[in-house]
């Protein structure tokens, strides 16, 4: 009977999560090491403040451990699941704080990071590269609104304030942006057959 053996860097994400859930020390360490950059990156992207982001990221790992049994490997990746946990905690942290003015240029690096660049395209898998390209193909105003809403967790009203536009316009941009990305991705998938 064929059996797979591997060092921790070869272990699939869902297996590490199962090990974390089962209280396996090696898996727990490997899990944290594998995902700490991604988790902290999302937390920083949403909350901005490094100290708050660190607390959010720690909470995310604790929540992942507590709810590991709820993860369904057939419905998505561990990375995406953990990203959702982190994002939700980060958004809660932001909304619990008084609103602070945002430098309009502070968003530029994040927008650039999630849209297509040769470096990122080479690093990402084909599917994610196409997603980057789809976001990059949006009109800049829509891409900014989408990043603010989807990654910064801002409401339409907050996007409107940050961008200096009416709330209705902010909603239209957010809706059109996500629909546009979905249409582009669907076209790409259809082309791939």
């Amino acid at each position: 009977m064929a059996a797979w053996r591997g060092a921790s860097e070869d272990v699939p994400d869902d297996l590490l999560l199962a090990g974390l859930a089962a209280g396996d020390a090696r898996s727990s360490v490997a899990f944290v090491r594998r995902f700490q950059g991604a988790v902290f990156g999302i937390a920083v992207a949403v909350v901005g403040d490094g100290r708050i982001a660190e607390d959010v990221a720690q909470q995310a790992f604790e929540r992942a451990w507590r709810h590991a049994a709820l993860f369904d490997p057939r419905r998505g990746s561990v990375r995406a699941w953990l990203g959702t946990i982190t994002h939700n905690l980060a958004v809660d942290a932001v909304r619990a704080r008084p609103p602070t003015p945002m430098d309009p240029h502070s968003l530029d690096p994040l927008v650039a990071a999630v849209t297509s660049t040769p470096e990122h395209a080479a690093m990402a898998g084909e599917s994610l590269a196409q997603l980057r390209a789809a976001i990059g193909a949006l009109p800049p105003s829509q891409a900014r609104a989408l990043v603010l809403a989807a990654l910064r967790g801002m409401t339409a009203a907050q996007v409107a304030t940050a961008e200096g536009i009416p709330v209705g316009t902010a909603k239209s941009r957010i809706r059109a942006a996500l629909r546009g990305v979905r249409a582009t991705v669907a076209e790409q998938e259809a082309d791939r057959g």
Partner: protein
Amino acid sequence: MADLRCDTCRELAPELALGLLGGDERAAVLAHLQRCERCRDDVAALTGLHERMRTLVPPVEPPAGFETCVLRRLAHAGLPQPSRSWARGLAVAAAAIVVVCATFVGGWMAGATSPATPASQSVRPELLAVPLTSGDRPVGRLFVKPATPSWIYLYVDAPAGAARLKCEFLRHDGSSAATAMLTVRSGDAHWGGPNPAGTTDVRLTDETGGFVGGARLPGD
């Protein structure tokens, strides 16, 4: 509240998928989704896009000591500590961290937070995987970490209509070491947990007792 029309639901779906919808609008959309599969699929697709977007956020290296803090937090929350042999095996490499962390979680943190383990003390690979099969047909996969504390993780395709599966952990003589009930979601089920002592085979059945799949644990 009157049911939404599909076109209104589609208009609001992006905001729902992004977690921006609240109050009455959210309630109305959710009520509509309970009755409309097409809109449900639409929201699911948009939600999936949102999840994938998060994976585009570039990773950022956390501050020094972050890993230690996370593991300490998990230990305080009740993450079990490993066997003594584990801690002893890695204690040398982690001596410096022991000084900082021993107060909190003892030997486990000593090993867990070691940035580098000497080659002579490295622990050999110990994760095994085998297919779960029904006849010759693969229906899932089973993973085992045999070293103490041993644990098992498995996922399996469920037969159409099955809501729950019974998973029996069998000893060499066919007696049952333990039983677990798995809930089927979207056509499949999974389970993870400590490996019941003495388990050599795993057998899954549906509510009617019909055989779904099984596997012999690797190494047995």
